[in-house]
């Protein structure tokens, strides 16, 4: 799937002339869609780097169920591959009338917009912008100020939205101007501080001393934010339901995907990716690095501003806490999980990262997700037979611990007190939930971290023996402690996911592995 937007440029433009081998970073992205025959043939006249870069593609074809489904999916025409999910999303509000679900849909769309914007900055141009959420906030506040009673201004939508977007883009330009020569870490720091300054300014903006005014003027409402923001209204149609905003957001997502897809394949998109790979090499290829960096920043900020305007309209208000660090981390998690630089990856990452928290909010769903994930993970990673053995051993460990704890006489909760549903019925017989969930849960949580640490140090057979205990411990911690703290668990899961993802698959699900040419 990742081939859709990221490979075409390189493989078309970098096609070997007269069979001359390509070397260097140009050759890194190959076309994973091509079958083994083409690979074998092209292996004769491509550079070593591309051969290395395609290692994963060559080895990953034809194993397991997932790969086969993927191959089937990829063999379909692009129109179907994009059209089918689109159809599902278009029909979603028709099939669903629950306001809560529609609201999740709107949030998903907004998140996808943001992720697409961030993808331009980090996925294409490789700029580590840790102040991205502040642009989102800029757009939201700008729109709120232009269309609420705060300043007594109610501009029509066709004026206020472009104004807010332009304002945000301008801020993006201003932030990127002093930082255009910075790279990597330093850029990250400057933008991180920008994000902090933004929150601080917004919080302090309820008492601004303007020249000429005797009393401090309240502009941003401080910690109370701005409420009573009026909704969008275009051509006489006013958006006031979740359903209408859902379609609005969906429209923008489709437009952006089409637009960014084109940009990505264009001269500019290729230049961006060249900068992301290696600014020095790009500069020596006469790419105007500074200007394109600024452009990426501005485009990203503009997209964030746009989603900000929709956000404040949907929410009927803006509050500084929406644009703080957790949101930033969630957004980065989305882009990186999907695979930065890949449009479908970004969308899927955004979907996972915006729906997952909602699922984790509901105990029954989160339980289901946890157990399905656990079992599927074990069976996916291990060989089926060993996986089944490990799971059986885990069940046995659970019963053994039950017996021990009962014999010791630890007070416990009956199954009805902590679980329900089909899984609960089974779980109630197997898992021991002590009465003092806080203490036991905390101790088990610390033990789990130690156990995971120990597990990663083990090798071979010891690992397999230890695994059932580890699995039982994680089930115990989840059911006893984490399932009672939904919002906390979310953050913990996201934090741990980021670390694990970086170690296991830094390029994300759909991203391409970077090959460092030494």
């Amino acid at each position: 799937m990742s081939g859709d937007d990221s490979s075409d440029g390189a493989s078309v433009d970098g096609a070997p002339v007269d069979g001359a081998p390509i070397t260097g970073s140009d050759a890194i992205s190959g076309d994973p869609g091509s079958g083994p025959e083409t690979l074998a043939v092209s292996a004769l006249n491509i550079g070593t780097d591309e051969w290395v870069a395609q290692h994963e593609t060559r080895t990953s074809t034809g194993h397991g169920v997932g790969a086969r489904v993927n191959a089937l999916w990829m063999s379909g025409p692009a129109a179907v591959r994009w059209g089918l999910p689109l159809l599902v999303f278009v029909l979603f509000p028709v099939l669903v009338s629950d306001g809560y679900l529609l609201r999740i849909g709107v949030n998903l769309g907004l998140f996808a917009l943001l992720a697409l914007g961030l993808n331009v900055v980090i996925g294409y141009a490789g700029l580590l912008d840790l102040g991205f959420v502040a642009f989102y906030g800029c757009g939201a506040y700008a729109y709120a100020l232009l269309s609420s009673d705060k300043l007594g201004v109610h501009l029509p939508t066709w004026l206020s939205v472009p104004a807010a977007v332009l304002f945000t883009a301008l801020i993006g330009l201003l932030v990127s101007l002093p930082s255009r020569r910075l790279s990597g870490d330093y850029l990250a720091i400057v933008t991180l501080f920008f994000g902090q300054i933004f929150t601080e300014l917004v919080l302090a903006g309820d008492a601004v001393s303007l020249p000429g005014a005797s009393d401090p003027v309240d502009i941003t409402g401080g910690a109370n934010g701005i409420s009573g923001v009026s909704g969008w209204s275009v051509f006489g149609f006013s958006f006031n339901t979740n359903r209408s905003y859902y379609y609005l957001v969906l429209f923008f997502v489709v437009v952006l995907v089409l637009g960014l897809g084109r940009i990505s394949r264009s001269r500019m998109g290729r230049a961006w990716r060249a900068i992301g790979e290696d600014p020095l090499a790009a500069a020596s290829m006469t790419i105007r690095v500074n200007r394109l960096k600024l452009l990426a920043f501005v485009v990203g900020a503009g997209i964030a501003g746009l989603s900000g305007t929709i956000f404040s309209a949907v929410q009927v208000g803006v509050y500084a806490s929406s644009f703080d660090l957790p949101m930033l981390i969630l957004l980065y998690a989305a882009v990186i999980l999907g695979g930065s630089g890949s449009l479908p990856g970004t969308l899927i990452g955004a979907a996972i990262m915006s729906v997952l928290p909602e699922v984790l909010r509901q105990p029954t769903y989160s339980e289901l997700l946890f157990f399905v994930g656990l079992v599927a993970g074990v069976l996916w990673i291990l060989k089926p037979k060993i996986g089944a053995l490990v799971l059986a051993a885990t069940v046995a460990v659970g019963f053994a611990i039950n017996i021990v704890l009962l014999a010791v006489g630890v007070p416990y909760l009956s199954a009805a007190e902590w679980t329900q549903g089909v899984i609960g019925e089974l779980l109630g017989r197997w898992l021991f939930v002590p009465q003092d969930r806080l203490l036991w849960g905390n101790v088990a949580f610390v033990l789990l971290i130690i156990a995971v640490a120990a597990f990663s140090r083990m090798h071979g057979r010891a690992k397999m023996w230890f695994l059932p205990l580890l699995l039982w411990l994680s089930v115990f911690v989840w059911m006893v402690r984490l399932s009672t703290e939904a919002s906390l668990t979310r953050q913990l899961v996201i934090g741990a996911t980021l670390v694990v993802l970086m170690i296991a698959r830094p390029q994300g699900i759909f991203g391409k592995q970077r090959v460092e040419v030494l």
Partner: protein
Amino acid sequence: MEFFGQQLVNGLTLGSVYALIALGYTLIYGVLQLLNFAHGDVYMVGAFIGFFVMIGLGGPAAPMVPVWLMIVAMFLAAMLGSGILGVLIEQFAYRPLRNSPRIAPLISALGVSLFLQNAVLLLFGPRIRDYATTEYIPIGSGFSIGSIRLDPMRILVVVLSVILMFVLVRLVNRTRFGRGMRAVAFDREAAVMMGIDVNRVVVLTFFCASALAGAAGVMVGLVFFNVSNFMGFLAGLKGFTAAVVGGIGSVGGAMVGGLLIGLLEAFATGYLSANRPTRSPSSL
């Protein structure tokens, strides 16, 4: 003048804390070229360890050990605990990423930071802990120079951080380990070829840096009382600013930068806005 003097004392206290945090950033950056975003959270964990040692050992009614021993125990436990935490973070979150693109460890560090904040929240709850220094450590109300009051905790903090910095400078400049550290910072590959065990150097560096952060956490608790699971992020940012101002990678620079940021913050808080702690980031 009195106000100025008091702010000066405040600034020095804050500055020595920031300097310790900045030293950690600088050490780690120097050796690995890695921005350890989780450093602020290590400092927060240090503050918590100190708090629990204090609660566990002392008590205004029934002190188990003499006060000076309690303070020593608090610092030792916090430094040891934070140090070990730092080493663990390095082992699990950064070591596998040492040769990956530069963005990977940064993201991983953000993940660690988020995880630590919420793990502490999970374990100890959202309540802001109060060090209650005045009850637990009753060693007089200090003395005054003119009209400027110097309370003993502030003196302790400044003196202790100077001692820690002195030890660190000796460590970096005079010992075999310090030489290894400087060699790795200068050129890792060449250091490997010279037979330096890079992993060992990195682990020790992380231990030292995190132990300093832990000590800084206890100091903040002793002087400013409040400890919460979100205190790490902002302090980390300030510490990092200090490191950058002083020139990242340079030990002396981190100390000067820390003092500068501390003084700046104290005077800015004192003279400009009465109730908002500034984030003083514009100094970048």
